[in-house]
């Protein structure tokens, strides 16, 4: 739910990175934070445990600058992936404009990915969103590991909607910006056609 202030000429959009625990959500944001032009980024906030597991959320504000007179920002959030943090996940999804679903490509994580995918649908629905209509991209992460499922199989199981998907090795940055560009553009398309 983008915030559009016609008086101060500002647009803020919210992107949420979602997925099971340790799928690479925080890694995505950390990579963006470390690599992006310093003029674009704000302070990154991470509410995490002592062992660096996301407890509540990560937050990274990005400013594109002034576009057609509007100061345009994308605010990136991650949710905590561990199963017992569902309440927090629900809260962070409030007002979302687009979702990046980060998949851990390892065979042994397949069931957790499926559960997280269903959890996303349920939590979006509680906020009145439809997972099939909201801007969404899928990122198949950890493509460098030996025990991974083929993308074709992951797509068959998860990507019935045929949304854009990207292979990634987030820890090395591969696919991170491709994913971010894609979800940002989907949000813009939605925003610019909205009445």
């Amino acid at each position: 739910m983008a915030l559009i202030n016609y008086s101060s000429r500002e647009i803020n959009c919210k992107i949420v990175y979602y997925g099971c625990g340790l799928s690479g959500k925080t890694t995505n944001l950390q990579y963006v934070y470390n690599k992006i032009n310093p003029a674009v980024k704000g302070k990154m906030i991470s509410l995490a445990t002592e062992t660096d597991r996301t407890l509540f959320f990560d937050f990274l504000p990005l400013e594109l600058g002034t576009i057609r007179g509007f100061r345009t920002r994308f605010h990136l959030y991650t949710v905590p992936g561990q199963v017992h943090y569902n309440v927090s996940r629900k809260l962070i999804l409030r007002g979302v404009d687009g979702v990046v679903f980060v998949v851990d490509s390892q065979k042994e994580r397949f069931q957790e990915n499926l559960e997280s995918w269903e959890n996303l649908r349920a939590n979006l629905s509680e906020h009145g969103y439809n997972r099939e209509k909201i801007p969404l991209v899928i990122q198949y992460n950890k493509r460098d590991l030996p025990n991974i499922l083929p993308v074709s199989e992951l797509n068959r199981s998860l990507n019935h909607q045929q949304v854009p998907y990207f292979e990634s090795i987030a820890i090395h940055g591969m696919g991170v910006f491709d994913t971010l560009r894609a979800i940002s553009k989907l949000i813009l398309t939605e925003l610019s056609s909205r009445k």
Partner: protein
Amino acid sequence: MSDVSLRVYEEDFRSINLSLAKLLRESRSRAVLLVDRSGELITFQGEIGRLDFIALATLAASDIAATSELARLLGEKEFSAIFHQGSYIHIHLSLIGERIILVVIFDERSSLGLVRLRVKTASEEFLHLFSSVFAKVEAQKLGEEVLLGEDFRRSAEEEIDNLFRD
């Protein structure tokens, strides 16, 4: 409710900022902010050194979100206000209707009692102002005008290609 963008137009923005400035003055606080419940900063008045207001807005919304869940767990509909006391700086958060959070940051020049009193009055004003904002958004949904359009999208995509890359 969930996919309605919050759109603030000039006349509403001016009124909101005037009310905010009045609250700042009358509560003798350092800064006052209005934040959307999803974590977006709507506007603010006052200043506190080099405080990151965007980060503050996100954390305030998270605080309210977590506290609301606590309230529900305890059988309450909401906790209407939250107060955090520091050694020098304190913060008071309260909900305006369902969607807007009012944040007041104050120090020893004010007091919790004064802030609560002024927030109570100001909340009624903001509730009325934001009701008007939301009513306009609903009315706009029925109109034909596309508000941002293709030119904006194309320009924004160019910036995205330029900035979101290794």
